[in-house]
């Protein structure tokens, strides 16, 4: 790759930057939109998301209810807005713990090799041998339905991908010149692992975080759809889709808007993941 030395005016370079990073801009913009919506939910939601209005049941989208109402007379728009809080939380917590656990274990396995590596990687193989959703469902079935169980199940199952990614990088990097130099300088193993190797090995995982967030979000919605995640009457997109399913041919708006929100949030994460990959020079 050749680096151009020519100086551009600020506006041209901004244009160019956005041209190259269009997906980053759109993805970040969409995510920001959802985050603002989640934070401002009490201010912008026109109605209480759980209050039932018996005389306003199954109303199609209108001025007073832009997204319509469900079979209990609850305002869909308000529920979608409040649902953003839960779904963002699902995407965040559902990714953070697997990321931390997976990165730690992957680093240790890759750095030490030998028996430690063998043990960790066999555990990874065992977990990967089960279909992902089946394993999740059985853990949640044991722990009882609810979001906490979902997070625990995610943490127990989701870390394996991160562990594999990081380990592979560490295996390569630990033989690089600067790592060998650090060893010969007598630095502690901890310092070499986490200060020298990990920052260089983590780029792939960071990109994967974004695509993983999509999967976690869809899983969370699926688990709630099956009645094992968020419990009613809380507003969560997956559960809203489930609750609206019986009415899908008569009142499409109950399932349509929360479904659309899932699609948009997932899309935002995908775009961000793409852009991050380009920026960090990671190609999946």
């Amino acid at each position, binding site marked *: 790759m050749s680096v151009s030395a020519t100086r551009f005016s600020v506006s041209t370079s901004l244009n160019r930057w956005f041209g190259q990073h269009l997906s980053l801009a759109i993805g970040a913009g969409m995510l920001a939109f959802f985050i603002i919506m989640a934070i401002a939910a009490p201010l912008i939601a026109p109605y209480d998301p759980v209050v039932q209005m018996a005389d306003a049941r199954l109303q199609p989208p209108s001025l007073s209810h832009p997204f319509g109402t469900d079979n209990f007379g609850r305002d869909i728009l308000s529920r979608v807005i409040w649902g953003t809080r839960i779904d963002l939380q699902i995407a965040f917590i559902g990714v953070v713990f697997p990321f931390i656990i997976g990165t730690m274990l992957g680093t240790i396995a890759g750095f030490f090799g030998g028996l430690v590596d063998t043990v960790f990687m066999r555990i990874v193989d065992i977990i990967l041998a089960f279909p992902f959703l089946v394993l999740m469902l059985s853990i949640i079935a044991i722990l009882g339905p609810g979001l906490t169980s979902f997070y625990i199940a995610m943490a127990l199952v989701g870390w394996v991908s991160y562990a594999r990614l990081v380990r592979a990088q560490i295996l390569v990097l630990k033989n690089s010149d600067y790592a060998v130099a650090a060893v010969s300088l007598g630095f502690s193993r901890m310092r070499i692992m986490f200060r020298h190797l990990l920052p260089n090995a983590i780029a792939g995982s960071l990109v994967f975080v974004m695509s993983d967030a999509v999967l976690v979000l869809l899983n969370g919605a699926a688990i709630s759809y099956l009645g094992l995640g968020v*419990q009613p*009457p809380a507003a969560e997109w997956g559960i809203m889709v489930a*609750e609206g399913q019986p009415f899908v041919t008569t009142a499409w708006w109950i399932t349509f808007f929360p479904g659309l929100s899932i699609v948009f949030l997932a899309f935002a994460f995908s775009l961000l993941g793409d852009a991050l990959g380009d920026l960090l020079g990671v190609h999946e």
Partner: protein
Amino acid sequence: MLKKWMKIGLVSVMTSLSAGIGIAEAAGVLTIGRREDSSTFDPIKTAQNIDFWVFSNVYDVLVRVDKTGTRLEPGLAESWAVSDDGLTYTFKMRDAKFSDGSPITAEDAAFSLIRIRDNEGSLWSDSYKVIDTAEAADPKTLVIRLASPSAPFLSTLAMPGASIISKAGIESLGEETYAESPIASGAFVVKEWRRGDRVILEKNPNFWEADRVSLDGVEWISVPDDNTRMLNVQAGQLDAAIFVPFSRVEELKKDPNLTVHLDTSTREDHLLINHSHGDLGKKEAREALDYAIDKKAVVDTVTFGLGDVANSFVPKGALYYYADNLQRPYDPEKAKELLTVAGVSNLTLDYLVNAGNEVDEQIAVLLQQQLRKVGITVNLQKMDPSQTWDMLVAGDYDLSVMYWTNDILDPDQKTTFVVGHDANMNYMTRYENDRVKDLVAAARLEMDPAKREQMYIDIQKMAKDDVHWIDLYYSPYINVSRKNIENFYQNPLGRFFLEDTVKN
């Protein structure tokens, strides 16, 4: 990963669609869509409506329930006589044949009744323990001696579980083969059973009322998804569909090609209360729950106004239903007062919900909101239906909604099950009242209908007073058929009269 799951989803959608498509059939074959497939054709080994509703068109019984669901009429028994002490029943058998052409004798009838009482796999043996002996005096005469007088006895003979099967047939074929492809005593014979998909019946030419049957055959087709099943009828791929969701009735009524049937049923939905759990043992607390629940709102929201608010565990229109039974009005203030009187504060209840059951989930969300208004916190626990039943039996719940449809026209069966202090802890409520218990036992023996009715009225009053559970609503059977189908009817006990159904 995601792709794989999407593929699985797509494949299952495709298969369910193609199940609907291959249905175009020869004239005279009625196709009916339902939520699930049969589980057996052995009449004693199931308690599911889904099986019973097919049995009644494959098997005949000694005594039938009529179309109104309130009277008994002769079936395979042409007539009967009861001895003065009420212990001996003598049935005169009709000239009738099984689908294999062999005659249906008193011996087959005796065999069928002894089998439901004694067979290890029978789910109904308790209900038939009252039979002491059942013997064929001659091929046309069946004599049954009871251990004690029993008012509901005749009506238990009409239950599909007591269907008459061929003694020689089951002995030569073996129970398992018979349960797959039985020898029929009713209007239709099982031609083929594609497990998990459909039951294919064809007209039984040897049926004693064969003249009455106009259809060449019937196919009970399993289409689990409600939306798909309705679309199949609308598109003409099915002639009829049962289990129409409440939410679809208005829309289907507008379709000029369809007839929506709202047939009176004996279904009652109720809220179980676990009396053994802390404050729920106090009558005031249970009364407070009853006042706090707006049943009219449940009827409006969940049944779209198609149900009726219930006031007794005996369903409306069933024998000995007490129409003037107490109906506690919706009164949140009174509920709060009662909770104060009982010294109950910060009541928190675990409400067990059948996951995936649309109606159950809707009721749960409604009741949760209503009870919150009187300061009761309700935690919804969604569980797989296979688990909820075990949890109810173990007493691992505070509240849960269940429903019941009557299997026999006599109220004894449900009354025993619900307040008779039987083996099931009064339908898992752990309700205890010895006066009710004694009255239920006495009503079973009382042969004078007027006195018996009074006893059932007293039972209904006392149970209501104790708030043994909370009656929510009665709802009809909702079915839909194409306009060219005539006489598609289900009686309150769930029997379809397919022998009268005509496909034009």
